[in-house]
């Protein structure tokens, strides 16, 4: 369902948007495939919401082209702008935008009435969609009396009922509490698989993007940093921004001591701890070069788990232990540098202990400073 090579469905080409002199969206190009869940991920102010609003037609770019299924929605060159009501898209707003004067059924029927659907057909479609989002029997309730989670379901039903070409979700879960958020994620994914609609999701929450999306575009300062499937982004970030934005990692200042083949030998810390790395991410790597090494906490093996390794091991002191339920979060110090790693519940470490650590060489990536 995902991946390159598939026929582009929704395309953005060289889209830019200026607010005064601030480039909210800067020469942004994306190709979204039919039926996929595509996430726009980035910190606030990265241009992801503006991009979504441009796709919806609520904002107009200053330059570039937006096409849907071969039809031009926006083109600066040809002075084309299709207004939002003609784009046949659905959208769930961050605030849900629930109309306070309508009942649940009236709200969901609204887009159908606009499309001149016969009343009997409207009633059937509304009931079916409400059933789908888990609000069967809520039709007669005034929308404002619903809870936040229920209001979101109404917003979702309103966006899906007319079978839009694209479903746009603007930070859809940010107003829900943690438990409900996780539940809605699962439901949304199931619903999308069932309906098959193309979804574009805007979020600043990486776990939301990683768990829901088939592909993710990481945005920074109005530009695309990287596009890829979640696992690929997590494991092979192409820029320091993506590396630091997705997942946690410990960064170390290191010095290259030797290079052979695709591997580098590096040294860090006051005691000159020596490790090998086989994940070279660019920059001039030669003996004496000073670089940044990065490692995910779950890639570091701690204590007994590290014992079987015969290389890339070193000792560290446990400074702080945080029990987070399924594991311990270990804040360690080695050669003066701080490291983060996880240890299993069975490990029984204590603060002040000295432990063995092992970092597989492919898990230690080297970056230009």
């Amino acid at each position, binding site marked *: 369902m995902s991946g390159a090579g598939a026929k582009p469905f929704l395309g953005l080409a060289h889209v830019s948007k200026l607010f005064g002199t601030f480039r909210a969206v800067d020469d942004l190009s994306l190709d979204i495939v039919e039926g996929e869940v595509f996430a726009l991920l980035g910190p606030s102010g990265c241009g992801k919401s503006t991009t979504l609003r441009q796709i919806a037609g609520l904002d107009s770019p200053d330059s570039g082209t937006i096409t849907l299924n071969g039809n031009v929605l926006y083109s600066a060159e040809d002075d084309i702008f299709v207004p939002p009501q003609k784009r046949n898209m659905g959208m769930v707003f961050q605030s849900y935008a629930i109309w306070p004067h309508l009942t649940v059924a009236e709200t969901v029927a609204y887009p159908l009435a*606009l499309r001149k659907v016969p009343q009997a057909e409207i009633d059937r479609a509304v009931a079916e969609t409400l059933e789908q989002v888990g609000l069967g029997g809520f039709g007669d309730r005034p929308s404002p009396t619903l809870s936040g989670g229920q209001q979101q379901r109404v917003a979702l039903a309103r966006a899906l009922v007319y079978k839009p070409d694209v479903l746009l979700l603007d930070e859809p879960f940010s107003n829900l509490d943690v438990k409900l958020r996780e539940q809605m994620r699962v439901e949304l994914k199931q619903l999308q698989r069932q309906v098959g609609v193309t979804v574009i999701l805007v979020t600043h929450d990486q776990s939301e993007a990683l768990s829901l999306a088939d592909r993710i575009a990481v945005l920074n300062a109005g530009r695309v940093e990287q596009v890829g499937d979640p696992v690929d982004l997590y494991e092979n970030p192409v820029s320091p921004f993506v590396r630091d934005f997705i997942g946690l990692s410990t960064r170390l200042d290191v010095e290259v001591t030797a290079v052979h083949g695709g591997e580098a030998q590096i040294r860090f810390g006051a005691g000159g701890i020596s490790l090998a790395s086989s994940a070279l991410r660019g920059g001039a790597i030669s003996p004496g070069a000073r670089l940044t090494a990065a490692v995910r906490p779950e890639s570091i093996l701690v204590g007994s788990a590290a014992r079987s390794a015969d290389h890339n091991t070193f000792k560290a002191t446990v400074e702080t232990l945080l029990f987070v339920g399924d594991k311990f979060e270990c804040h360690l110090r080695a050669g003066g540098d701080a490291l983060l790693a996880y240890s299993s519940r069975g490990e029984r470490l204590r603060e002040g202990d000295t432990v063995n650590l092992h970092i597989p060489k492919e898990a230690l990536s080297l970056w230009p400073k």
Partner: protein
Amino acid sequence: MAEVGAIRALVPSALRRIRPGTVGATVVLFVMLMLVAYPLVLLIEASFLVEGPGNTKVMGLELWRTAWGAPGMLPSILNTFKRVIATEIIAFPAAILIAWAVARTDLPGKKLIDTFFWVAFFLPALPVLMGWILLFDPQFGLANQAFVALFGMEEGPFNIYSFSGIIFAHIAARSVAAKYIFLSPAFRNLDGAMEEASRIAGASPLGTLRRIVIPVLMPAFLITLCISLIHSLESFEIELILGPPNNFYVFSTKIYQFIQEDPPMFGIATVLGLAILVCMLPLIFWQQYLSQRRSFVTVTSSFSLNILRLRGWRWPVFATIAAFGTLITVVPVIFLVMGTFMSLYGHFGLADAWTIEHWETVLTDPPMVRATANTLMMGAAAALIGVFWYSLVAYISVRTRYRARGLLDFLSWLPASLPGIILGLALLWVFLNVDLFQPLYGTLAVLVVACILNSVSTGVQLVKSNMVQLGRDLEEASFIAGGSWAYTFRRIVLPLLGPVLIAVALLTFVAAARNVSTIAMLVTSENRPLAMLQVDHIVDGTFEAAAVVGVLIVLLTGCMALVARLVGRRFGFSGLR
């Protein structure tokens, strides 16, 4: 498509960028400039025109020099400020105390007290004044008669036609009530957690009041004070009735007197009005500064009220406030109604003291019938056109990126800061001296324009704040669902704004029906509404007829105000979140 492209290519791109919305907004701005700015400019220009050789007008400072010599000119300015300061020194602290007691103590009967002040706020000043005259007139005032009868005094101690009488009338009219209504939300919305945090940090209740409550509420106090001072300066009708017998004039009644002269002393009146405007400028700028700083108490959705227990003081405090509430609402209305049934106003000792003759004559009196029709038509027209106009201005200001919307905001806000009499004077200039508008003089249209301007600031502000609350995404959700602008306006915007639009229409009607100061100089015998008819009756000394007209005005505005409040309650606060 090819033809469209060809036509497009012919139109310069700069022109294509001018959208119909921008054109519409510019038309709205132009009308506002004509209605608000242009009359003021004419007024200022007029004050610098002097008779030149051969019936020409030339620029000069002649008027500004000679005006000060006009009889009563300087005293009227001094009197204005004397009166304002004396009123506010009493009314402001009283309103703060009452608003605080109602919002933040366990006072009983809060709803009743709240109602008293809302009623007092909506009661028109003149009818209420009629009630006070019946009580405190030096000759026939009932209170004076009672003192004479009870204590054998030669004459009663009260005289409403005096400086202190005028101050009393102000305090009993809107002075305290308006401030109470302004201050209550600030007191109510103050998050109790702020006070609790201060108490836990070790401050006493009094220390908390001094260090937390007062500083936090200070912006609300200041803006209330500022607006009260401006409104107080604008006052007209109380002084118009109570001032002249005592030869006490404030600037507004003085302007009115100058214009009533034959021939009217336009020039001097203009100079006086502008002089007062100059005096008010610091206040106007201060208000602008305060309201732009927006440092009001933040409203939180889940705040707790820190209710102070009054213990033994509960009932005494309630009795005091309730007595004041009764005094400013029930008492004058009772005496007003009583006055309509008296053969001779205030003379209870007559053999046939009571009669319904006044109701009969007044209800069949042609000027009276005409005045009623005038008030109804004027109010309805002002309300309907006003609501439409205020919504347009508010929409441009809130929902568009129109470049000159700052100027539009200023123009819609300015009339509230202009004394009605000055606005009236400026409009009088326009309708007398501009050829295009001259034919309208003496018609109801003139009064309708005046009334729309009189309510423009409140109206636009109300619609704007509700529009902001609405949230743009409610409209956007409809666009996405496939709705056009017109469909969205009909199905989403209008139903949600409907209640506030009805409320604004009713409030505009009420303001029009009770208005005296703005229209006083624009009225002729043809377009005279009820409020001016009452003024004329009082000035003529036909108090009985004046009382009947007063009751009619109270009934008319009272019903409208009640509906407005119900609509506001029903939808304004519960429907929108």
